């Protein structure tokens, strides 16, 4: 952990909320990117990040400084995001049963959630986003952490608080499942 983070945390613990503001400003963007890919919704992502910061603030005295502050923060955010996705999936299943039709999680219609990027607009980008959204929250989390965040197995295991072997097998299954979904999508398209 950087000395600056350590100093800011110490100030927070002494009651200086402004110091926590500095930490929020420092990590919010990075946190938002990861969370956005996990929840695939801009508003949900903002809510998750905000809630993660508030939870972190309340648990700050429990942070021992063994890991990076961002890793600790990221763990809180990922767990919050996974919980949110589980709730959404349960609701989607209920709706599917009610209507009797198979539904895929609809893309977020809000403009803010659809950044105007070329790849995003491309067929390949859309396809992989849809496939990603159909993965389980756990599989999606490891793929996002590995491919988008470039985390190592060890860090991922620390964040998700599971053994490294679990990370390896989850990633393995996640990659193959994603591949299968993409193949299905290509055949349908």
């Amino acid at each position: 952990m950087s000395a600056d983070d350590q100093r800011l945390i110490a100030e927070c613990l002494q009651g200086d909320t402004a110091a926590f503001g500095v930490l929020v400003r420092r990590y919010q963007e990075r946190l938002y990117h990861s969370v956005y890919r996990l929840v695939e919704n801009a508003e949900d992502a903002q809510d998750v990040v905000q809630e993660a910061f508030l939870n972190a603030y309340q648990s700050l005295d429990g942070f021992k400084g063994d890991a990076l502050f961002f890793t600790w923060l990221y763990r809180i955010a990922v767990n919050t995001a996974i919980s949110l996705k589980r709730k959404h999936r349960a609701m989607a299943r209920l709706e599917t049963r009610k209507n009797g039709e198979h539904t895929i999680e609809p893309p977020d219609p809000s403009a803010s959630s659809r950044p105007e990027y070329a790849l995003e607009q491309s067929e390949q980008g859309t396809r992989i986003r849809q496939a990603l959204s159909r993965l389980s929250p756990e599989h999606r989390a490891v793929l996002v952490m590995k491919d988008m965040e470039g985390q190592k197995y060890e860090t991922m295991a620390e964040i998700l608080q599971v053994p490294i072997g679990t990370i390896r097998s989850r990633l393995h299954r996640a990659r193959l499942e994603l591949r299968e979904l993409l193949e299905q999508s290509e055949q349908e398209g």
Partner: protein
Amino acid sequence: MRRPRAVVICYPSRDRQGAGASLFRAKGLASMLVDRYRQLLTAYVDGELSSRQRRHVARLLHRSPEARQLLRQLQADSHVLRQLPRPPLPSDLTSPVLRSIAERRLAPGQRRLAQTAAATAWMGPLASWATAAAVLFLLGVASYLYFAASLEPEVKTEMAQQQPGPSVADLHPKEQGTTPAKDDKTQMASRDQPAAKIDRPSAVNPPKVVTHRGDGSKPNAPDKPPSPPKDETALTDRLEMFPLKRVPDLLPVVVKVSDLDGESVRQQFIAELGKDSGFRLELPCTNGAKAFDRVQKAARTLHIGLIIDKQAQERIKLKWRVNYVLYVEDVTPEELTRLLRQIAAEDRKSAAGKPAEAQIDRLVLARMTARHRKELSVLLGVDPAIPIPSAAGPLGADPRKSLADATARQVGQALSGQGVTLRPESGKPPEHIALVLAYNLVRPSPGSDEIKHFLEGRKPVRAGTLRALLVLRGGG
């Protein structure tokens, strides 16, 4: 010529992947490779392989076009994921976060305290219930002790007077001013009544501890004749206890079967068999099929017919090392002892020169308890303790059934090889009929033709005879 070392292509049937990967089995390139290789490839994409594993992957890729193609696809997927745009944060979250902290009055460490409170929240109601239960319990104990201590002997006497049965005057004539002569008569009279056997504490003298003795004598009443030991109530200083009763000695007896040849052991054994009307004998052996062979030979020698259940027949035919059970009724202790001795003799004959072939050594004799009778009921389908209805006519035929039915059944059994009744070699009718079953309480065969045949042929038991369940415990 050098042969390729690794087989790369595999069929889905060899795939040992878990249930979570069922998606990949149906079709697609991924399903064409064994899971071990796919794991190597995905870990290769992750960049988390050791140099040795990387060399292995290189060899794999060199040999397998499917592996090369799958790796290309996985790498492309990973590349597309990495290239997905990073959406910009719509708005700075610093202010909302700090505002929430202020509005909710959050503080560092608050969450941990809240978690602790949540974790211990369930203890509140539990503690209340525990306290309430403890108070009630203490109140109950205190009330009991208070009333037990404050209850005067006079009150107890009044309570005794209100109870039906002999009066207190009958029980304590001296206290009522009766003369000694009348006293004795009253005492004798009261002893004749069943309820008078219950001793109660005196209304005047403090109650004494009465110790129950096996001979029924009382230490403080040497002049009085000893009261009968049964149904005696034991009294402590304050509390009246349940009456003591004699229970029959149900401990099993272990006997070495060959020792029954000795006169003294045999007589002891016969005396033991005379103590009850039903016994269960457990005969441990190393091979149930071989032990049954000895039983068969002994039965033939002693003119005992065996009705062997079909299930048991199959097992005997296949020489299965399972447990068998032989059930016999209306045998005297001497006859049963003779059968056991004969079984031991047949065993010695069969194992002559081959000690390892010996099957019979010791037996455990136990009186037939309710549990044993239940076990027997499971095996037979009926409780054999129920008296046999005297439906048979004077010639032994059941008038309720037609002769044609009985004949047809017997012919059918003979043709099908069922209901084997081993006739003694002499050709004489068997003196006793025993039923042989596979000892299988899990899958019994109650109601089989053989069991029906045995039950239909039962006769009312003679006095002094017993029923015996002999278990050949020779399962592998």
